């Protein structure tokens, strides 16, 4: 996030895009609710009638994957109405005239046709955003899990740049991270193109710095992404893999492909708390300690580095992740330093090689008040990024085109399928699924379908259905709800043992980030008799299931 979470409550205009915040980030949603109570404007852009939309001044219920068309049209309105921040555009951005020209074809009529949002509403939202003194954009996977994920984000950045909303309090462009430490893992260098602190591996200067720090020559080429890595496993270029704490088999699109990839490996190591589906394929499984059993850090969505602390003992011989990796490394006899006594020493080393963590140690992150970059020990942290200037000089306005989803409904597969998360489940449920209470709340998977579509197909609430795509099929129950629009059905992926949603999702990826298009696939839905072997729970619990999205 360019800005910190607490700032949200003073934001007078919030544009929430593709984020089911009340379920996925309930405590961030609290700040949004507070801002609304203080009189802020709220516009929600989401194909589904999510609970946040009930609080909004406007809900732009867009067609899946039409974001760029919509945001380009909004940018055009802002420029046409002369609401852009001329001084900021002049001093801090480049490419404005080109953008203005590029946007000529993105008329309100065009955007309405592509996105399905009434043009008056698009205009209203653009004018509110453009005229607010400070305006913040908040988004999650709804924006990035598309083949055009990067364009989607850039089209939002364009809006923030032309209105001068990057680099000031209670504004900005703010991706809300799903996993608790996904930010921290990237910060620490677990990326194929960056050393710790987002230092490019292809820069000779950076490489020399790390060669000096670690005392060995390093590879000058950037690595492949994990999506490509799975392909390389299938074609035999990749022989060994080490996966820490991820249930890849369940989280990745197209399970058949992932299974094949993992089964092709000569040597496969998994490190986890549980014998997950993925771990069952491994040659070696290391038992990992839980977060309550170790010291360490998590970096959250707003770049805040916080301490976690050991409170309980690991079961049996489970060990902290850092310890396990160091022990393997020592036995490789590479001569590289891997003698650490504590996680504190590991953190200190990270801080010594990463400029954005340079001013940090366990004492300084004790109260969790600091946001990176923290370049030195006296630095107060950076809750607001890009104040004064951008790291790379000027903010470049991007000329973006609308690219339709790679898979669209046709006669054979007439529905759009989109996926997401439900409040009491987390990711693939390896953690929440072990809590009895959560099983009661959300006993199993279900497919949400609009009443009109249900009627057409002759479905009653709770009926069984087979959902198939070009890649495979899954079986689940039906919940009739107006949450998703006509023609679009919705599922989560929390119950892999019964319903492996990623059997049917779309593996096409964004060409830049290689993030798969989880959010859009074309599927067919047909009624079937109740299958054997599924849990006897009804699809939805009385009085709450269907409306679950509105209150958990």
């Amino acid at each position: 996030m360019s800005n910190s979470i607490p700032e949200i409550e003073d934001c007078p205009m919030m544009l929430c895009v593709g984020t089911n915040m009340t379920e996925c980030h309930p405590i961030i949603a609290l700040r949004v609710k507070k801002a609304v109570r203080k009189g802020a404007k709220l516009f929600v852009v989401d194909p589904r009638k999510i609970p946040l939309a009930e609080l909004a001044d406007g809900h732009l219920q867009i067609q899946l994957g039409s974001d760029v068309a919509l945001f380009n049209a909004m940018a055009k309105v802002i420029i046409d109405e002369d609401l852009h921040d001329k001084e900021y555009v002049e001093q801090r951005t480049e490419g404005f005239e080109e953008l203005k020209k590029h946007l000529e074809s993105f008329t309100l009529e065009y955007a309405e046709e592509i996105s399905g949002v009434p043009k008056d509403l698009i205009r209203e939202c653009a004018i509110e955003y453009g005229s607010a003194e400070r305006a913040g954009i908040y988004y999650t996977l709804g924006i990035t899990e598309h083949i055009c994920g990067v364009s989607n984000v850039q089209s939002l950045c364009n809006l923030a740049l032309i209105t001068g909303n990057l680099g000031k309090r209670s504004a900005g462009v703010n991706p809300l991270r799903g996993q608790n430490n996904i930010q921290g893992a990237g910060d620490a260098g677990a990326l194929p193109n960056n050393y710790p602190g987002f230092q490019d591996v292809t820069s000779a200067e950076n490489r020399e710095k790390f060669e000096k720090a670690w005392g060995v020559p390093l590879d000058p080429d950037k690595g492949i992404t994990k999506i490509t890595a799975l392909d390389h496993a299938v074609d035999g270029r990749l022989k060994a893999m080490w996966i820490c704490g991820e249930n890849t088999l369940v989280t990745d699109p197209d399970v058949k492909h992932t299974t094949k990839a993992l089964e092709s490996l000569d040597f496969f190591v998994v490190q986890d708390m549980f014998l997950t589906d993925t771990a069952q394929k491994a040659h070696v499984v290391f038992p990992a300690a839980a977060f309550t059993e170790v010291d360490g850090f998590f970096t959250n969505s707003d770049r805040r580095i916080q301490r976690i602390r050991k409170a309980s003992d690991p079961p049996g011989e489970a060990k902290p992740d850092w310890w396990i990796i160091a022990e393997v490394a020592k036995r490789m006899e590479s001569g590289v330093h891997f003698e650490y006594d504590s996680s504190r020493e590991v953190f200190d080393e990270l801080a010594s090689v990463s400029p954005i963590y340079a001013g940090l140690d366990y004492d300084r992150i004790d109260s969790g008040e600091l946001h990176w970059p923290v370049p030195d020990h006296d630095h107060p942290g950076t809750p607001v990024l890009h104040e004064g200037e951008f790291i790379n000089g000027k903010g470049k306005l991007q000329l973006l085109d609308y690219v339709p989803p790679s898979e669209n409904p046709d006669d054979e597969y007439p529905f759009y399928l989109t996926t997401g998360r439900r409040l009491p489940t987390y990711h693939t449920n390896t953690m929440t699924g072990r809590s009895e209470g959560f099983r009661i709340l959300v006993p199993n998977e279900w497919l949400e379908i609009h009443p009109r579509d249900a009627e057409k197909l002759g479905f009653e609430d709770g009926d069984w259905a087979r959902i198939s795509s070009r890649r495979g099929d899954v079986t689940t129950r039906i919940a009739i709800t107006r949450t998703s629009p006509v023609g679009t059905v919705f599922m989560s992926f929390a119950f892999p043992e019964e319903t492996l949603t990623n059997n049917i999702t779309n593996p096409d990826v964004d060409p830049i980030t290689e993030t798969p298009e989880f959010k859009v696939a074309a599927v067919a839905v047909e009624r079937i008799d109740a299958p054997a072997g599924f849990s006897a729970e009804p699809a939805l619990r009385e009085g709450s299931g269907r409306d679950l999205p509105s209150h958990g």
Partner: protein
Amino acid sequence: MTDTMKMQLDGQEVSFTEGETVLEVARREGTFVPTLCWDERLDPYGSCRLCVVEVEGRRIPASSCTLEAEEGMVVRTGSDKLRKMQSTLVEMVLSENPGDECPRCRDIGTCEVHELAEQFDVGRERFLGAISNASKEDSNPFLLRDYDRCISCFRCVRICAEVEGDYAITMTGRGWNKGIATAFGGPLMGSECTLCGQCIYTCPTGALADKKMVGQGSIPGKVEETRSICPYCGTGCSINLHARDGKMIGVTPALDGPVNEGALCVKGQFGFDFVNSNDRLTMPLVRKEGQLTPVSWDEALDYTAQRFKSIRAEHGPKAFYAIASGRAPGEGAYMLQKFTRAVMNSNQVDNCSRA
């Protein structure tokens, strides 16, 4: 100027800043002022009257939690008269909360009401019989509701609205029938309730409690609290982990958490069973004759290192790939990328952010 404002507290001159309440000033000065309807996360409410203080120039004592400090104000706490009022109030409250059978005190740890009863050394005899309200049944998996023990401080209603923004419960009725109910009087699971559990942690009695903690109070051993961060999403809410003899028993929100300011959602509050789950892995496993077989650490580590070495020797650095967790602590991610880069000699490392 704000920092020069002064008032008198029990004969001592103390300074305060504009907007501070007398209760806040007193607590800051370490003066004992009992409270019941007050919670630092909530707007002051002033219903229980337990926090009364005497203010010079006023005929009747005032509730200090709603009273803003003023320049030159002269305040006295804890006079005999005040203590008598307070102990009567505690006694009345106690009449609705028979101590001998308070499930909260028995199973979880002393509730605020019974702590106060101890401090004021009062029993429940005088008001016995005046138990109000009902409704014990609630099928939700997390929250114990026993409104017999409700003392109408409305902390639950207020935390639900003010802190969680859920507005799931409201006040109903009057007098002895006064109580808390969901919007339509039904069970929580059919209401707007998100089961975030924050109402149970503000409740000063045994009216609302954590079903999971039931039974915990009777186990001997000291409960240690350790500050940590919720692992369920990128928000980063601060929590306190409660453990006894090295075993997790529960979680409470950290009231001064910089992100959550004392709020949590259902996952952060109740999602910790996995830690104690009996299918946790406890030993390294190595596949032998097709079966994953428990082995010693040495065997698993040696075998792994030897396999990685031979694969690198035979197929080069790019035959290896590592994926770091986006959920585990960052030290592990740092180590895994260092291992990949410095030991395996490639940049073939990623985290799970792409999928």
